[in-house]
């Protein structure tokens, strides 16, 4: 079977390996993500979770292995091309443009005018404004559009970054610890937001908060030292003795 061409999966990762000076941060990893699935990757610190996301979105180049998104080989594509293919990625630390307003932050992510020329002639028309307002509403920032992003709270920045992904409407959304560092109230609102946005797309989430994971996960992948330790439903994973050992031994 040519796994790369299998239309049943949105994302296929096969035999993925990356090494830094001999240290294999990800080692022969394979997993498959189906349409509308919410895959949560968990694992102790240093398990290689973030590196996996880096590999998928092109930030780090694989030493060997395959990554296919809807039949396209991502390992040969530039970051921006991967985005255009429909993969969105949120970083662990909120990454927004602090010198720009919330509105401008969202506007930059609006999927039009990606080339230099396109960006030069880009016009802020009614359609753009309407869409930005819509997204701003979803991420609880509709009354802060003219504020500079620098003054937002940590949680608001996380939302803003999620909003910047949403406006692109990606088919595969990758979120790296979306609720880390949030207050309880923010965390609740974020869970609500995530539940809404994962409905009609595939999502990969890295998260430590098990309650949160149980809440959203379709399937869970457990990584340990760059390798797949266990995979399956939340209940399956929690019952797996290897997982228990890693977490207790940790």
């Amino acid at each position, binding site marked *: 079977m040519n796994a790369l061409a299998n239309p049943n999966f949105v994302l296929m990762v096969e035999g993925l390996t990356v090494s*830094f*000076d001999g*240290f294999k*941060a990800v080692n022969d990893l394979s997993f498959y993500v189906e349409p509308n699935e919410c895959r949560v990757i968990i694992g102790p610190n240093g398990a290689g979770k973030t*590196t996996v996301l*880096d590999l998928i979105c092109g*930030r780090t180049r694989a030493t060997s292995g395959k990554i296919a998104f809807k039949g396209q080989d991502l390992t040969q594509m530039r970051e921006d091309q991967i985005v255009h293919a429909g993969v969105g990625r949120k970083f662990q630390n909120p990454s927004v443009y602090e010198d720009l307003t919330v509105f401008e932050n969202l506007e930059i992510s609006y999927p039009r005018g990606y080339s230099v020329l396109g960006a030069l002639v880009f016009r802020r028309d009614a359609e753009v404004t309407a869409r930005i307002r819509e997204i701003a509403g979803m991420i609880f920032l509709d009354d802060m559009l003219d504020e500079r992003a620098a003054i937002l709270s940590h949680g608001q920045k996380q939302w803003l970054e999620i909003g910047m992904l949403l406006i692109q409407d990606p088919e595969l959304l990758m979120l790296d610890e979306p609720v880390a560092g949030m207050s309880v109230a923010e965390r609740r609102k974020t869970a609500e937001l995530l539940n809404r946005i994962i409905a009609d797309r595939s999502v990969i989430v890295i998260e430590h908060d098990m309650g949160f994971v149980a809440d959203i996960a379709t399937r869970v992948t457990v990584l340990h030292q760059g390798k797949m330790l266990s995979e399956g439903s939340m209940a399956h994973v929690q019952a797996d003795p290897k997982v228990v050992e890693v977490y207790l031994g940790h």
Partner: protein
Amino acid sequence: MFSGYSMSELGAIFAMQGFAGLILFSVFVLMALGLAIIFGQMGVINMAHGEFMILGAYVTYMVSHVFQTWLPGLFGLYFFVAMILAFIAAGLLGMAVEWAMIRHLYKRPLDTLLATWGLSLILQQIYRSVFGAREVGVTIPDWMMGSLPLTDLIEIPINGIFVMVLTVAISAAVYVMMFRSRWGQQVRAINQNRVMAGAVGIDTERTDRLTFGIGCGVAGVAGAAFTMIGSTGPTSGQLYIVDTFLVVVFGGAASLLGTIASAFTISQAQSIMEFFLSGSMAKVLTLLAVVGILMLRPQGLFALKLRK
């Protein structure tokens, strides 16, 4: 171009050309070590590096006068005193500069570049006001200016040997300090994670100041040594700055070993090309090659591939 020469002549020439390359290599290492410490370990661009070197040269000049006047009997040895004083003078100035200027700019590396360029202009003018606009002649002890005839054809310049020995000694000292001393451990710790290093009790301010001082001090020693082969004037320092930076960047900024390797590569390339081409073209081609390779491999020759 080799027709009409005997094998022994050719052999002698190649031996001497190889030696010339080694001298150039030593000169590059001496120039670059101080900068490699400062740039590699602290991320600071010190455009006044050449002026710190010239400070060492002027110290040598003054010490030579003191010895000539008061200790003519020991004149043959003044050079060693001069190098120690050059290290101290350049090091102290470096620490003062770190305290007054650099420590405020650690988060803005490009701004250190501009500020230290300003510093270099100021130092040049100070040298000019104190020592005059003309070059000063530093008298080198006779024993250092001769040469050792190995065979009829091969002569080895003693100052070349001196520079090489000095280079080995300083490189070894820097190596020991960086990798065997507590200070070196602290420097490397700060380089990797400034906040964490501070949290575990390393006095980052003191270590920074010391590091900058040592880097400048090494530049001062290099300047003292270069009075043997180059000129000492207010603007002489600028002659070295581009070569020096290229050596450090080409080697991979964070790696002392890389600096040495890149000095070796560049010096050999330049020395060989100088022999076959005209001097100007050799220089241009060397620089072009270095820039070209840097474009292909911006992290330099010896940078580690790090997990971001």
